[in-house]
């Protein structure tokens, strides 16, 4: 699916909520061709060794399309867990576990942001108490210095740096930053501005998706 778009637009997003019958919340998010299925359970029981006395334990498991999770996948898990932990009001459910399981379906670039957005949708579907929403946007800098938002794999390969920003929905402050490659301070700032602008579209998308889901049940 190659749609004509300017470099400052996100790829088209679609999602399905609550399609898994056994989990407490589930979401499939497609951004362009990148697809992630998220299933989540919680607030449920947790192993005694991982129990925290005054807040919920958040656990994230990432499953790649083929093979076992690698070392880099563990890093991704950790990044997503830390991001989710900051927004979940975990003090409301002490001594419980909130498990998020991400399954890669297709990786066509901007994968980390798709994972985080999918996790946020699953949290919404399960009605877990949250401080605010999070919206992740990836962008890349080409060798000519051009910034492309939400790049696909081809664009990512050609780029010199890839940056992923996560913003909150309240004041659009940065929650998480993950970067690879080299870039200048000015480039970082302009990427940040571009991604912040784009994250507003992600929040609007969340709102539309939830409205669609609730119109069915109410």
């Amino acid at each position, binding site marked *: 699916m190659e749609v004509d778009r300017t470099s400052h637009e996100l790829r088209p997003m679609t999602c399905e909520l609550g399609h898994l019958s056994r989990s407490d919340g589930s979401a499939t998010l497609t951004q362009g061709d990148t697809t992630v299925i998220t299933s989540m359970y*919680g607030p449920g029981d947790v192993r005694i060794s991982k129990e925290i006395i005054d807040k919920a334990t958040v656990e994230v498991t990432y499953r790649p399309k083929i093979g076992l999770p690698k070392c880099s996948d563990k890093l991704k898990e950790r990044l997503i867990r830390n991001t989710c932990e900051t927004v979940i*009001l975990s003090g*409301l459910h002490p001594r419980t576990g909130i498990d998020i399981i991400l399954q890669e379906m297709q990786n066509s670039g901007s994968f980390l942001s798709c994972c985080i957005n999918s996790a946020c949708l699953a949290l919404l579907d399960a*009605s877990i108490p*949250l401080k605010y929403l999070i919206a992740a946007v990836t962008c890349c800098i080409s060798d000519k210095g051009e910034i492309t938002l939400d790049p696909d794999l081809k664009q990512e390969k050609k780029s010199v740096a890839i940056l992923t920003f996560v913003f909150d929905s309240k004041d659009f402050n940065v929650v998480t930053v993950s970067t690879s490659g080299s870039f200048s301070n000015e480039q970082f700032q302009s990427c940040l501005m571009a991604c912040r602008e784009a994250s507003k579209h992600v929040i609007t998308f969340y*709102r539309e998706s939830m409205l669609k889901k*609730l119109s069915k049940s109410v």
Partner: protein
Amino acid sequence: MADHVGSLFLPGDLIQNLKESEATKKILLGPGLRQENDLILTSKPGILRFREPNVYWIDSPQKRYVPVKGDAVLGIVTQKMGDVFRVDVGASESATLPYIAFEGATKRNRPDVKVGDIVFARFSVANKDMEAELVCIDKHGRSNGMGVIRDGGFLHHCSINQVRKILNPENVLLKTLGKNMKFETAVGMNGRVWVKGRNINETIAIINALAVSEFMTNEQTLSMCKKLADSLAGF
């Protein structure tokens, strides 16, 4: 009344212009709303609801049950431990049910409860920091319909929203079903419904009616119940 009642709110959204009670100048915040300094924020996604004079809450569809004090629930006894039973109610941890909390139970006279029994009970303690505790008696020491459910029937699992819908006085489902057949039912707020009809056929029919009626309006429920009664009668 504020015009934002009935619209969608997502976590982190600000709610303004809430109507306070005239006498006390206070607002009552229900589930899904929280206060941060002077601001009132949403913490769960859903529709904002309002009840006179000053109660606000967020109506959000949730699959997982979280115990609330006073809720009547259906649980399954999983373990006998000394002077308490452990009961699975579908929450994050199992609740306890003291054997003394049954009608007519004394230290000598223990109630007849076995592992695997279904109990209809009410939460006497439901606190996020403590283990939830159930009782099968009201404040006068009467069972009041609660206790162990025996003699067959069927335990159906459904969404918590569905239970709220069934228990809504405006909903016609149980009333209409009751016109055509006799049945006993117990509805637990934890998304479990126990039904026992006169025979297995009728029990299955009632369970099927419950299962399909989640997203139906009252008119649709009425016509569905009519069709069901006709097919049970053999038309």
